């Protein structure tokens, strides 16, 4: 028995939504970043599933996934560095308390 494509897509969409919820609901900047990583992994599952089922001879889907990994790593590195720098001056990375700039 093979797993149909739609199962992968439903799983990926659910994972994306969970990640998006974390981005919206979590107050800790690191938890928000984890939510973003969930969203990116959902995209990777989508891409690999589409590649396997629709264009198994063309590698562009797989290559896209490799790029997503690499860019996500670079982004996380910069993001965590920013958070460390904020923690040093404010002793918090709760996004609700980083609110000096507003209307």
């Amino acid at each position, binding site marked *: 028995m093979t797993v149909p494509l739609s199962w992968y897509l439903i799983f990926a969409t659910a994972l994306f939504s969970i990640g998006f919820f974390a981005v919206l609901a979590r107050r800790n900047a690191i938890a928000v970043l984890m939510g973003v990583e969930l969203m990116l992994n959902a*995209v990777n599952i989508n891409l690999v599933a589409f590649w396997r089922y629709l264009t198994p001879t063309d590698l562009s889907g797989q290559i896209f996934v490799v790029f997503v990994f690499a860019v996500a790593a670079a982004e996380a590195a910069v993001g965590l560095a920013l958070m460390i720098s904020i923690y040093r001056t404010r002793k918090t990375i709760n996004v609700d308390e980083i609110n000096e700039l507003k209307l």
Partner: protein
Amino acid sequence: MNGSQILRLLSPELILLITGFVVIGVDLARHREDEGRTAATVAVVGLILASLAAIALYMTSPNAIVFYTLAIDLYGLFFKVASFLGVALVIIASVNFMAGRSKYLGEFYALLVFAALAISVLVSATNLVLVYVGVEFLSITSYILAGFLRGDERSEEAAIKYFLYGASSGAVLLFGMSLLFGLTGSTDLAAVGQALKAGGDMHWLGVVALALVLGGLGYKASLVPFHQWAPDTYDGAPTPISAFLSTASKAAGFAVVGRVFLVAFPDFQPEWSQILAAVAVLTMFVGNLTALKQQSVKRMLAYSSIGQAGYILLGLAAYSMDPTFGGINGLMIYLFGYIFTNVGAFLLLLPIEKKHGSTDMAHFDGLATRAPGVALLMALFLISLAGIPPTAGFIGKFFVFAAVINQKMVWLGALAAVNTVIAAFYYLNVIRRMYFAESSAEGGVSLSRGLLTVLVVNAVMVLAIGIFAQFFMTWVNTSVAWVTASGF
């Protein structure tokens, strides 16, 4: 295509790449002595050489696709020249501002050069993978630049807000791209467009992908409702970086939105035209109405820059094949003038910030008697932002609005006109305070030589685009020829 041809077509990018590394190297050797002046000089020379290389390429009207992913065409080269010049102006103006504020000046200028390289890749990208990599390359350099004043709470806050919005928008963009890949089995924009044209019963999923891609790219162009980061980031970031983010970086966002929509979604024009019109109206109203009540001029300019994004987007919403009022040419001339206008307006805040410590409206009271030159330049940039002739802002608005009327989108034109009036109110209010209000402070403001040069260049360009509009429009109209040629 052989090696030397590829080198020639990629010469602007290669020059920038080498310049970036040379800037870091030069700084290693010299940064203690001159506070980054040598590094900045090298960076500016590199950017000017890259612009010249891009102009030289432009003269040969190339229409090539390198490595199956980078289109070296007139549209891309137009945006390259405009943003390289914008970044060069920002660097010259940063020299005095950054000296003493940070120890890592070589890295600062190198990052600006790499940001220009990212823009250059982004405006040429014809492949979903490269569009994503370009957006993230530009974003990651921008996060660091926005938070460059380490230990300064406002700068750090600007960076973290930009980062959190940018990272989530990037994921949304990718999800849209993964759906596009699934729908069409290709990551090439043109192939995606062809496959979508063949269509089938999955049209609705194409619209979902389009909306997700617009959400992901729209944050770069600060379109409502993806704009929440913009006011805080423009306000908190070092002022030259605000100037960069609100101009060159935004122009790149519009360039890539334009290319993706026109190449990958030509068949969806009825849908995206409506979506973009709605987004443009929201962007104009939110930006302009919030700008009205700002007490700080920097924050007012931040919101005004969101409002301006709304006008610019009208050009794409009203896209048509019309050779004179096609919309996309209005978008391009608007952005070209806007880069010089807004860089000028933001950089004029530097001397005020330096003298008073903030950019409160009250510090502009009676500026015309204390510093007539500064007040005159500020008035010129504000008049251009308001869209009053004979400035660049007027030409941009004229072509964008004409495209809207040409497409018979009368209600859209009316709403845009209402917004122009609201915007004129707060722009002219600053001019009123500069010229007619009682001065609350003593003494003029001083401009450094570099900053003065940059402001004069900006002012000359703003007036030149306004007065010799014919010349610039010919140039812009040549640059959009690819859209018409691609048989949209």
